[in-house]
């Protein structure tokens, strides 16, 4: 058996006495794209934040390439660089130009020279159709452009896994299209990704596997065709009926 790229083993997470993740286990293989679906508060975002070590888990294990990322002595900042995270609210740094947003962490975390960091930035900006925005400040970009810059910023650190936390939820339909194209492009590059998303159509199209979460548990996981067309669990079916009726 090959080791999985990212592996969650019975992960529990509570905020105070509120249990948000109830023993989530998930294996993600290299180059695989997994979509997390489920209602608000189902634990999708929390799972991604735990993998990026922005949250401390209460029990369980998380492995990257078979090595625990929460074991004592593990350098959390190094792990965060290897597991990129893109937020729903972009969180670009408003006091820095687009270029600086993308280069400054490279220079500090990866100790790249400025020219090296800029070369990497321009390479990615060009690929995602943003090279004319390099000198602009985030305030002057549309939401879709900001979110694409946020993806570029995360990708510039050459992460091994990219986590995308409902990155289209704050965008209007046209901009959603722009951002989804970026994700499509990342898939063709072979990027290992976990996406929390509300776009069922897109999830079906892009994902290798879909995981349905409810109440902090993975209720069901499987290839899109199976999960969407022939869900085993009545809770999955009920969720899909509700969501697809509104689409």
């Amino acid at each position, binding site marked *: 058996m090959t080791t999985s790229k990212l592996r969650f083993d019975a992960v529990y997470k509570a905020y105070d006495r509120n249990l948000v993740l109830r023993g989530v286990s998930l294996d993600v293989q290299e180059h695989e794209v997994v979509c997390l679906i489920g209602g608000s508060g189902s634990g999708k975002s929390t799972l991604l934040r735990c993998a990026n070590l922005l949250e401390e888990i209460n029990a369980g294990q998380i492995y990257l390439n078979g090595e625990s990322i929460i074991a004592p002595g593990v350098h959390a*900042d190094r792990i*965060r660089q290897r597991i990129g995270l893109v937020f729903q609210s972009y969180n670009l740094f408003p*006091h820095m130009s687009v270029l600086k947003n993308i280069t400054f962490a490279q220079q500090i975390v990866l100790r790249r020279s400025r020219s090296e960091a800029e070369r990497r930035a321009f390479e990615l900006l060009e690929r995602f159709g943003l090279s004319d925005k390099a000198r602009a400040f985030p305030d002057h970009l549309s939401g879709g452009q900001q979110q694409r810059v946020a993806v570029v910023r995360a990708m510039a650190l050459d992460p091994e896994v990219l986590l995308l936390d409902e990155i289209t939820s704050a965008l209007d339909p046209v901009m959603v299209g722009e951002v989804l194209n970026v994700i499509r492009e990342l898939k063709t590059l072979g990027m290992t990704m976990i996406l929390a998303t509300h776009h069922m159509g897109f999830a079906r199209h892009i994902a290798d596997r879909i995981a349905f979460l409810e109440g902090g548990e993975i209720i069901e996981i499987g290839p899109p065709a199976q999960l969407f067309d022939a869900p085993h669990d009545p809770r999955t079916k009920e969720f899909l009926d509700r969501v697809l009726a509104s689409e």
Partner: protein
Amino acid sequence: MNPDPVEAPRKLSEAEIEALLVRPSVWKRRDVQRSLLIATLSTVVLGALIAYVLSESTGWDAVRRSFLSWHHFQEAMPRVWDGFKLNIKIFLIAEPIVLVVGLLLALARLSRNPVLFPIRAFAVFFIDVFRGAPALLVILMLGFGVPGLRIEGLPREPVFWGTVAIILTSSAYTAETFRAGIESIHPGQRAAARSLGLSNVRAQLHVVLPQAIRNVIPPLLSGFVALQKETSLVSAIGPLEATRQAQIYAGTTFNFTSYLAAALLFAAVTVPLARLTDHLLVRSGKSRASGGAV
């Protein structure tokens, strides 16, 4: 003949649209001229009224002689100016130290690392004490108290201890300003910085602080104004700064125009600072809320 009731609303021609876009500025200019005229008139009328009432009232001559004597103004100004140079010197020395100490106190107070608990506790204590105590009290305590200890190696000059006292009280206020600035930055900014692999310190330094400091520049400038005025309190322990010089002059001549001279000197520094603050506030308000006519 009645107009056709179902006639479609006529669209404007290009020329009419052009006229529409030009006219507001003409209107505006006329508007501005009109309000300028009204403002000038009302000011002149009110000023004349006040002048008339003052000149008719019985005490006015006495007031003018005591507070507005040109002769005494000329006599007192050189001495007050001499003292004011000390105020400026205290301000220039104290302000940079206040900014650094204030920022360090704010960072100490916001630290969450348990190892730093004693530092955090100290910061809270320091801010409580020096924000709670009147500046004059601290000046008197340090200015008279510490030289009285006769400890070898400690400076004895009242100016030194007065400046230290001012630095302590102002730093406490400034720390709270910085703290408000840091807390105003959305937690997502820190999360984004950490998610890129930056350490806590790096995230603070490169992402949180630059934004926080920019947000609190207006209140910091207000603090500058307050500090410049507070330097006059040092007179309580002896140094011959502007207020003290004015007091001495008034004490020997029984004329109070010297105080006016001192007040004008302070205003010459603080009013431009206050205007700069207003200007920056307006600018930051504009950049934040773009759009909307009301």
